């Protein structure tokens, strides 16, 4: 299908769900891209996964009670995030085990609850793999509003998040409320996950959080640039993914994630400073001509930054 056909479909009143799905997919990938930067830099990918699974019982309850899925998911996800933050203060059991416990426990609860609803198999598939149809108008506003709140909080607390990420001990000594900042960050991750569930689905939502941010990290050494690149990558993957999914009738969540993964692989190969090809090329250049300023004569790359250059 050509781009013009896609555009025609987008404005076709009989296909009103399509622009809605596009808007939600783009908004949620932008938000996930920004929040995902913290997740990637702190190595909390596992928390993102836990939260993604933990929203399931909330969605199941909302489904059984015919309430708002986004709201139900948010409540359950935030509750789990708080439980993880509180339980992981006790250092006897490591954080990843705590997360493992709650992740599976919550998911199990969700399965039991949703099995109580008649005809649950179809909706189960929707939760797990996402869908672009059947999005109520209300969700459009909920996702937009939640996205703005999340981005606002990120903007407001950015320097605190960075400080905690850099050095917890120092942050405590500066009098920062490290525990509360952790909780706020967990809640932001949860909300970003919840608003993305609709289109991407429960199983793949983690990719929206991690992949664009990880690709952006490969492309830059500057946090500010990374936090701009990640949402751009995520948003573009959403647009291209939805287009391809509509053209070739592939599952939308899977297609978006595959596009993002392709971008990540491309970044890994082609990144200007740390990409595989750039390193190869620098090595060649360094060996070929001793007189030109190669990376070897630059004191900046003399140290541990160059395990591969050697």
């Amino acid at each position, binding site marked *: 299908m050509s781009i013009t056909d896609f555009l025609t479909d987008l404005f076709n009143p009989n296909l009103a769900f399509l622009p809605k799905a596009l808007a939600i997919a783009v908004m949620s990938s932008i938000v996930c891209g920004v929040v995902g930067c913290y997740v990637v830099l702190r190595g909390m990918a596992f928390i993102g996964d836990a939260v993604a699974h933990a929203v399931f019982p909330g969605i199941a309850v909302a489904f059984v009670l015919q309430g708002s899925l986004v709201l139900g998911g948010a409540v359950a996800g935030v509750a789990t995030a708080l439980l993880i933050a509180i339980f992981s203060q006790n250092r006897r059991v490591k954080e990843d085990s705590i997360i493992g416990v709650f992740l599976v426990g919550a998911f199990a609860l969700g399965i039991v609850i949703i099995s109580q609803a008649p005809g649950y198999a179809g909706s189960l598939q929707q939760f797990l793999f996402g869908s672009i149809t059947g999005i109520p108008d209300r969700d459009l506003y909920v996702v937009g509003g939640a996205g703005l709140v999340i981005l606002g909080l990120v903007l407001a607390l950015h320097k605190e998040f960075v400080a905690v990420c850099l050095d917890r001990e120092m942050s*405590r000594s500066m009098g920062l409320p490290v525990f509360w900042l952790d909780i706020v960050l967990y809640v932001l991750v949860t909300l970003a996950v919840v608003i993305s569930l609709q289109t991407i689905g429960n199983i793949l939502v983690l990719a929206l959080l991690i992949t664009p941010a990880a690709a952006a990290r490969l492309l830059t050494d500057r946090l500010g640039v990374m936090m701009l690149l990640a949402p751009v990558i995520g948003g573009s993957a959403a647009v291209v993914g939805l287009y391809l999914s509509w053209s070739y009738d592939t599952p939308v969540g899977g297609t978006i994630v595959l596009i993002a993964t392709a971008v990540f692989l491309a970044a890994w190969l082609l990144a200007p400073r740390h990409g595989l090809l750039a390193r190869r090329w620098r090595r060649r250049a360094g060996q070929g001509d001793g007189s030109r300023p190669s990376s070897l004569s630059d004191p900046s790359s003399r140290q541990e930054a160059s395990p591969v250059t050697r």
Partner: protein
Amino acid sequence: MDQLEVDLGGRPVLRDINLRLDRGELVGLLGPNGAGKTTLLRAILALTGIRAGRVLVGGKPSRPGRCEIGYVPQRHEFTWDFPISVEQAVLSGRTGRMGLFRRPGVADWRAVGAALDRVQLTELRRRPVGELSGGQRQRVLVARALALAPRILLLDEPFTGLDMPTQELLGDLFTSLAGAEHAVLMTTHDLVAAVDTCSRLVLLNGRIIADGHPADLQDAALWTTTFGVSDTSPLLKLVKAI
């Protein structure tokens, strides 16, 4: 510090600590692994609960977030692979001071510039922290503490893993800070550097074993008690030699 006692995990770690740190002093805190050096620094910063006694800073009880104290934790506490430049890492030391929801202002950047000048990192200020050597990283951490313009500087093993020239540069910096009416307390395992730079040494092992000018700590018994080594240990030869 007055009659300070600290327990960790139900075990006594520090007992009967009386220590006074004055402006213009550069004090070296020596002791074996597990002696409680880091714990003592954390107690001064009020990062760990204390069982008894009190810590006064400038006459007032210590609490986190007071700007009089600059803290330089051990190097491995810092996330060095974070995509951030040297000057931003130093600026992060002022996060607590700026207050929630505030952005850095002119005063903040000026303090960062001055701190970078002091540790001679101005040329590298735009370099990502992940691309620094061990000595440069240590200087970043010192600059980050100095960005608060503290009166007291606490350093946890600033010399570990550094070569002689870098140790000397930092040692000179600490001496000049002490000369400029700061109080500097640093833990270290490097006896030579400690004797060389410090105006006073404190030997610690759960309690304070000795406290005085390096020249006054010649007694071998002090060192064998602190470090639990035998009378023939090379440590004693080192003590005698310096």
